[in-house]
C-alpha cells in the first residue's frame, strides 16, 4: 500500500497540482519545403511554472450525497451570455498579433472560468476551452464529442469574429456526484 502511495505522490509531483490549471498551444506556419517526414505528431502537457503544489494531496474520498441528480442545473444561456460579453469586450477592437493573442487566450479562459465560478453552481466541474485564430483564406473545422451523463452534464459555446481574427469559446459543465 505504501508503494502505491509513493507512486501516486511521484506522479502528482510531476503534474501541476493547483486548482487553476492553465495551458496554451500555438500552431505556427512552417517553411513550405517539406522534406523528410510527411506527418509529425507532438504531445504537450499542460504546464506552466509556478502552478505546482508543494505538498502532494491524496485523492479525496467523498461521502454519499443520496441525491439522484443535481439540484441546480448548469445554466447554458447565462453562460453563453458571459461568453458573448467577455469575447466582445476583450477582442472587439483587436488585430491579430501572435504575442497578443497568445496572452489573450490564457487571460480570457481564466476570466470566463472565474465568472462561471462566481455563479456558484454547486457540484459542477467546469472546463473552459478558448481558441483564437487569424482570419486568412483558410478553412477550419472544430468538433467535440463527450462521454458523460447527458441528463446532468452539458456545454455552452460561442464564436466571435472581427475583421482580422476569430475566437471560439467552449464551456463544459460536468456534474460530480
Amino acid at each position: 500500500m505504501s508503494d502505491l502511495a509513493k507512486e501516486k505522490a511521484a506522479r502528482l509531483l510531476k503534474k501541476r497540482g493547483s486548482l487553476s490549471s492553465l495551458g496554451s498551444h500555438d500552431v505556427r506556419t512552417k517553411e513550405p519545403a517539406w522534406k523528410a517526414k510527411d506527418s509529425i505528431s507532438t504531445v504537450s502537457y499542460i504546464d506552466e511554472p509556478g502552478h505546482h503544489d508543494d505538498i502532494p494531496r491524496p485523492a479525496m474520498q467523498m461521502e454519499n450525497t443520496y441525491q439522484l441528480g443535481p439540484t441546480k442545473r448548469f445554466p447554458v444561456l447565462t453562460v453563453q451570455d458571459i461568453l458573448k460579453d467577455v469575447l466582445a469586450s476583450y477582442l472587439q477592437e483587436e488585430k491579430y498579433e501572435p504575442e497578443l493573442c497568445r496572452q489573450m487566450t490564457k487571460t480570457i479562459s481564466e476570466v470566463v472560468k472565474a465568472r462561471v465560478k462566481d455563479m456558484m453552481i454547486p457540484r459542477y466541474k467546469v472546463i473552459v476551452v478558448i481558441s483564437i485564430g487569424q482570419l486568412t483564406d483558410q478553412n477550419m473545422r472544430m468538433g467535440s464529442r463527450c462521454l458523460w451523463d447527458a441528463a446532468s452534464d452539458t456545454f455552452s459555446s460561442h464564436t466571435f469574429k472581427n475583421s482580422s481574427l476569430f475566437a471560439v469559446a467552449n464551456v463544459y459543465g460536468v456534474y460530480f456526484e
Partner: protein
Amino acid sequence: MEEYHSGDEVAFSPDEASNAVKECIEGVIGGVDYNQNNVNQWTARIVEHSLTQLVKQGKPFKYIVNCAVMQKSGAGLHTANSCYWDTTTDGSCTVRWENRTMYCVVGVFAVAIAL
C-alpha cells in the same frame, strides 16, 4: 454487485490517452491532403474513434474530446483552456499533429467519476 475500481482512485494518465489519440488521428487523416468536402467526416471520425479507444481503457472517467482541423495557409492559431476540477483525479492532454497540408489539434479532458 461488484465495484469495478473499488477503493483505489486512479489518476488520469496523459501518456496512455495521448498514444490512443495519436493512433486514431493517424488512422483517419494519416496520408491525406486537406479536402474541404471531407473535413466534416474526419473530425467526427477522429473524435469518435478517440472516445472509443479511451473508453476501452476501462478507467472511471467522463471524457470530453475536442478536435480542430485547420488548413495550412500561414495563419496562426492559439488555444487555451482553464479548468475548475479536482487536480488529484482529473486531467487533460493535448495532441498536436500536422502533415503537409493541415494541422490537427485534439484535446482530451478526463473528469473522474466517484465510484
